[in-house]
């Protein structure tokens, strides 16, 4: 890399607590439960997120059973179907993906990748997890309260979200909003930590433009989340006040079950603006960490520098900024002023350009590489396929007039599952297969991993690709049963049944993955410190798994960017970021 001189290390003082000042745990409780070590907190976040994610997975089976075989299962009725879709969506988007990418991957990787000993505010970091756990418990409690969880759809649009025609009006919606408020409080504590750690605690030589793209992705996503979540926070508080105290922020004069209510003067569309001002950045809060992780997986496993690093960084930043001015593309048919459509369609389609650049640079990284088809690499390839597919259907829905027939149909469901369900989950799995050896010291089983990948990738594609065509046909979303129509042919029901069977198979493949996680913990192959031959700092720790404080006595010094793979003249096909130039030259002398 010509433009980033590798021997310049001056200028960045190590703004880092010395090893001796770290709070070291004194008991089992403070080591494993109330731990202030970012790595332990990361594992706590990940386990909690995946546990509640399993609930959402089971809910998706219920939904697919109902859609594939309507009327067959007496334990699923219209109300429960709505409760299932609501909880499935909310859990997957917020409590699984957001928590796992930022709380899980962020906590584990940020300090290690930038060469810090820990997050800068370890105590707040610990609190962040416990508040998150409380939010998850409150959410899970809604399954057991009278009336069950809310069935308002994950978008929680008022007025119906708080009126009696919707299931879960008594307790479900109140606890849901309380849980969201808690989640945002917990996230803010963690998020401030991630941002300050990246900005202040990078080790000597780790300039911003030498950071691995994973850190760039998580960092930008966290900044976005800190700016976007407050919109959801205030919307939740206001909706809670409307529900409990009878205020009318979102409630106009309206009739509830034939009776005129006391509400009056509020605006339902205001909620939609607040929700999507959070909700659209949320898409990229999930996508940007995935972009970063995929960049690092592809580069490492293709033994090649990421192509166009600087363009990749600027694309992440540009996408992050643009994503705050596109929110109303979720509202083209909401009844907002129709002229907004011109503005939001234009901004939305502009965002396609930096996103496309990222895709080009991933595939150009593969070009003339030395591609090792490891399990993480397979997941990275699967990510590109599903992300490109879902991204391109976004060009349909973002183009305002094309969205009119497609909005609120199964096309939308197919699109967002492909682009922010399957694709980020591919990045999560790829990341877990990639970093599990660092976390545990052991490799995940390779054969089980390959089985898991192919079933998940082909199966999920078989669920969501055909679903677009049901949407084109006009099949609306959030219908537990399409019932009698003149326009849905009988063959569409067969297609639904096929998709349900595929979804069940994909679901069971995840059990194989969970088994692999547990089994490999005890029986997996010993990994060593750097099994993939990777350059970034987390693979250069003195111990594996890294101890508290990460680096032993001395912090690493960084001499180069994170992508020195297959450098001409170097003896090995990778040069760790902390390898001094003199050593590289000495090795290079032996061809």
């Amino acid at each position, binding site marked *: 890399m010509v433009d980033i001189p590798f021997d310049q290390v001056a200028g960045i003082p190590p703004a880092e607590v010395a090893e001796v000042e770290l709070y070291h745990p004194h008991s089992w409780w403070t080591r494993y439960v109330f731990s202030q070590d970012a790595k332990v907190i990361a594992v706590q976040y990940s386990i909690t997120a995946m546990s509640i994610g399993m609930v959402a997975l089971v809910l998706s089976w219920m939904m697919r059973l109902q859609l594939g075989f309507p009327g067959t299962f007496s334990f699923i009725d219209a109300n429960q179907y*709505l409760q299932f879709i609501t909880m499935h969506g909310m859990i997957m988007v917020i409590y699984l993906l957001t928590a796992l990418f930022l709380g899980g991957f962020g906590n584990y990787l940020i300090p290690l990748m930038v060469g810090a000993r820990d997050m800068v505010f370890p105590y707040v970091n610990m609190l962040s997890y416990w508040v998150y756990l409380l939010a998850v418990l409150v959410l899970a409690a809604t399954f057991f309260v009278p009336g069950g969880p809310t069935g308002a759809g994950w978008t929680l649009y008022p007025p119906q979200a708080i009126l009696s025609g919707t299931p879960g009006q008594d307790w479900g919606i109140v606890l849901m909003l309380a849980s969201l408020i808690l989640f945002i409080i917990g996230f803010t504590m963690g998020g401030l930590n991630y941002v300050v750690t990246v900005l202040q605690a990078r080790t000597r030589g780790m300039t911003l433009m030498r950071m691995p793209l994973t850190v760039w992705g998580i960092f930008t996503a966290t900044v976005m989340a800190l700016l976007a979540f407050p919109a959801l926070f205030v919307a939740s508080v206001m909706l809670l006040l409307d529900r409990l105290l009878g205020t009318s922020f979102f409630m106009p004069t309206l009739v509830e079950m034939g009776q005129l209510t006391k509400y009056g003067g509020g605006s339902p569309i205001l909620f939609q603006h607040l929700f999507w001002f959070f909700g659209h950045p949320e898409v990229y809060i999930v996508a940007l960490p995935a972009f970063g992780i995929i960049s690092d997986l592809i580069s490492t496993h293709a033994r090649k520098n990421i192509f*166009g690093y600087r363009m990749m960084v600027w694309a992440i930043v540009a996408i992050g900024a643009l994503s705050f001015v596109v929110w109303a593309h979720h509202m083209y048919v909401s009844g907002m002023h129709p002229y907004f459509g011109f503005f939001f369609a234009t901004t939305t389609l502009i965002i396609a350009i930096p996103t496309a650049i990222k895709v080009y640079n991933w595939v150009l990284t593969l070009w003339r590489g030395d591609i090792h*088809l490891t399990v993480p690499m397979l997941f990275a390839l699967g990510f590109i396929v599903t992300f490109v597919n879902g991204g391109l259907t976004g060009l349909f829905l973002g183009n305002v007039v094309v969205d009119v027939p497609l909005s609120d149909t199964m096309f939308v469901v197919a699109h967002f599952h492909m682009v922010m369900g399957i694709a980020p989950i591919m990045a999560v799995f790829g990341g877990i297969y990639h970093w599990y050896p660092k976390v545990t010291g052991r490799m995940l089983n390779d054969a089980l991993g390959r089985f898991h990948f192919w079933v998940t990738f082909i199966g999920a594609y078989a669920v969501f690709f055909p679903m677009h065509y049901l949407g084109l046909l006009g099949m609306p979303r959030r219908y537990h049963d399409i019932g009698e129509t003149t326009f849905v042919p009988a063959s569409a029901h067969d297609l639904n049944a096929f998709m349900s069977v595929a979804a069940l198979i994909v679901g069971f493949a995840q059990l194989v993955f969970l088994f692999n996680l547990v089994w490999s913990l005890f029986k997996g192959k010993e990994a060593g410190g750097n099994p993939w031959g990777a350059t970034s700092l987390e693979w250069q720790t003195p111990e594996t798994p890294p101890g508290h404080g990460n680096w032993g006595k001395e912090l690493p010094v960084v001499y180069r960017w994170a992508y020195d793979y297959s450098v001409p003249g170097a003896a090995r096909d990778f040069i760790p970021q902390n390898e001094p130039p003199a050593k590289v030259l000495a090795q290079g002398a032996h061809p």
Partner: protein
Amino acid sequence: MVVAILLLLVAVASVLFHLYSPWWWTPIASNWSYIDHTINLTFWITGAVFCAVIAFMAYCVLRFHHTEGRRAHYNPENKKLEWWLSIGTAIGVVAMLAPGLIVWHQFVTVPADATDVEVVGQQWMWSYRLPGKDGRLGTSDARLISSDNPLGLNPNDPNGQDDIVVQNEDLHLPVGKPVKVLLRSIDVLHDFYVPEFRAKMDMIPGSVTYYWLTPTRTGTFDVLCAELCGAAHAQMRSKVVVEEEKEYHAWLDKQHTFAALSGQRNVAKAAYKTGSE
């Protein structure tokens, strides 16, 4: 080898599914065939990009798969290539956005000769209101809603007296005449959705939204609710009958005006009262 073939298969299978699967949009029944054309254009452009990216990936996996002694090429940047790719993408984006915005302009510009038709959504049924001979709809207010006046029409508005109210029955429209569909809800969000018309718009309590269309063929079409509105969202159905002018007027003559309906109710009430005395 196997991975490359499987990746290619995903792309090929997707294209074949697109071309040969029986699931495609319903035959259009409105003037919005422009929307269909824009969707088709988008399919062509995005389909080409999808196939190109997957094919290139499969080629890379096949050609640059790890073998003993292979070493990757060291190539951090290629500004020229990155710029050309960005410009190419921008051209593709403009090719989709420009026609899209032109059609959107038509969609939001209601022709002057369009007739008003009001659709009222409530949990979980559809009602309709057509202007009477004066061609104007009377005003309405949610506060006026009662069992006698389920749509909340203003009884003191002279424009509203001859309005035709169709409650919980099918809507009829004449073929070939542009209509401005005024959308109103009295409780929660709904969305008046007829797949064959391609158009849809949410209905919001407290405001009146709209879209316009010209029905282009006769027939009976399903009305569905496309915005989640509570427990019976999926059962909120109605039908639109598009028919020739003559049949339409025959149907119209059989409908009741607001004045007649409130009159009947008053008579019925009076009869009930005298009967009980």
